């Protein structure tokens, strides 16, 4: 059931983070809908957490945040902190509930984006940025969450495809195999 961690697995995660980060910086940030661009970073962190668990999700979020802060000359550590929260939270949901509904990535993506946007805003206020909480700011946060909600499922599917060799057995596949191999439950074979 657990993922085997080796250099190949880490390289796969690294490549996903680097490609996602650069796509965000060079392209996604330039495409605005109602004046707001989408933010792939929380979706990537949440998807990795949902697919691989809390520790890989947190580590991936930390690394992706560090990449973003470095590339944009921002204060190091802020994006890492909020993204690792998103990755860890998504991972814990998988570990505790193991949800199988097809729309779970959408809800998790929206929640992760909300956590990241609000967390980032709170961190900025705590660090002394002198700005009022305006309607424009709230609008920007809400629109980013809406946009990311629409993108959550495609991003999750891409992540699942990239990380497929690292994934433990899918619960639905497990169920299908149980039916097709003759037994309704392990007890019936006993």
């Amino acid at each position: 059931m657990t993922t085997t961690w080796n250099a190949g697995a880490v390289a796969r995660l690294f490549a996903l983070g680097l490609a996602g980060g650069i796509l965000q910086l060079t392209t996604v940030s330039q495409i605005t809908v109602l004046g707001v661009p989408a933010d792939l970073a929380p979706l990537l962190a949440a998807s990795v957490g949902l697919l691989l668990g809390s520790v890989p999700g947190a580590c991936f979020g930390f690394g992706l945040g560090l990449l973003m802060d470095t590339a944009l000359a921002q204060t190091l550590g802020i994006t890492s902190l909020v993204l690792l929260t998103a990755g860890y939270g998504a991972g814990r949901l998988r570990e505790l509930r193991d949800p199988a509904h097809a729309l779970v990535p959408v809800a998790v993506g929206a929640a992760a984006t909300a956590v990241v946007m609000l967390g980032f805003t709170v961190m900025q206020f705590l660090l002394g940025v002198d700005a009022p909480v305006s309607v424009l700011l709230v609008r920007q946060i809400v629109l980013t969450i809406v946009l990311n909600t629409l993108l959550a499922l495609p991003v999750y599917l891409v992540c699942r495809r990239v990380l497929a060799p690292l994934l433990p057995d899918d619960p639905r596949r497990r169920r299908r195999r149980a039916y097709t191999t003759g037994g309704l439950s392990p007890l019936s074979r006993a």
Partner: protein
Amino acid sequence: MYDRQVRRRRAILFALVACCLVLITAYFGESSGGPLKSVQTGAMEVLAPIQEGANKALKPLRDLFGWFGDTWDAKDERDALRKERDQLLAEVTKLQGADAENDELRGLLEYSQNASLDAYAPVTAQVYSRSYSTWYSTIEINKGSSDGVRPDQPVINDVGLVGKVKSVSDGNAVVMLLSDADFGVSARALNADQPGIALPITGSRNELLFDLVPQAKKVREGDRIVTAGTITNDLPSPFPPDILIGTVRKVQGEGELERQIHVKPAADLRSLDFVRVLTKPAADSLASTTP
């Protein structure tokens, strides 16, 4: 076994959070040439070619989405332009009488503008990365300290002020845009001849606030806002005078204290491909005639 896994998970989480907090604290505490900022600059040097390559490779994709957006906006824009055309046709009739005089003055103005720009030693740079968060509005350009670019130098495009250089490494630089939460520039309204400060509005990438204006009621919609330049030699401004910042879009509020002057930046900050860094912005500070 389960307890061991829980302990391991908590230890990793604690280590990562502690690492973040240490980074934030250390980054805030150190000077501009500190070790963390040096590491960040070094990492940017490594990432810059990758970003620049990806930027070029993904441009068709951006253009495709841009085309959809432009088509969406085209109808509204057409109606607005038709209205504007009718107004302009009426104005043209009035202006024909002053045409000859205007040509002469425009020639003089262009000459002086070109001359002063050359004096500021502009360096043309390509934009290869843009930030996207509400709080950091920055772009990265492919010219750095080896081209004479230094922090705080003004950055313009073909229509007006874009921002200023935030940090520099050998071959590239980060530019803080007008809409960045930390940006501010002393400015003046041309027609009303009122000084003030152009500040960003957090959450809005396409609007600025012209604040701290002594007689704000004199400022009207359509007034052009330009940089004030160095007013006193004790406090030299990094921005040369009379660079166009934007145009007053609306004036809100009745009283002098609650009056808010909204400015639409002249430069389209969302689609910058090439910019110019004025590497000698103080070239004319002594000769400045800013009131």
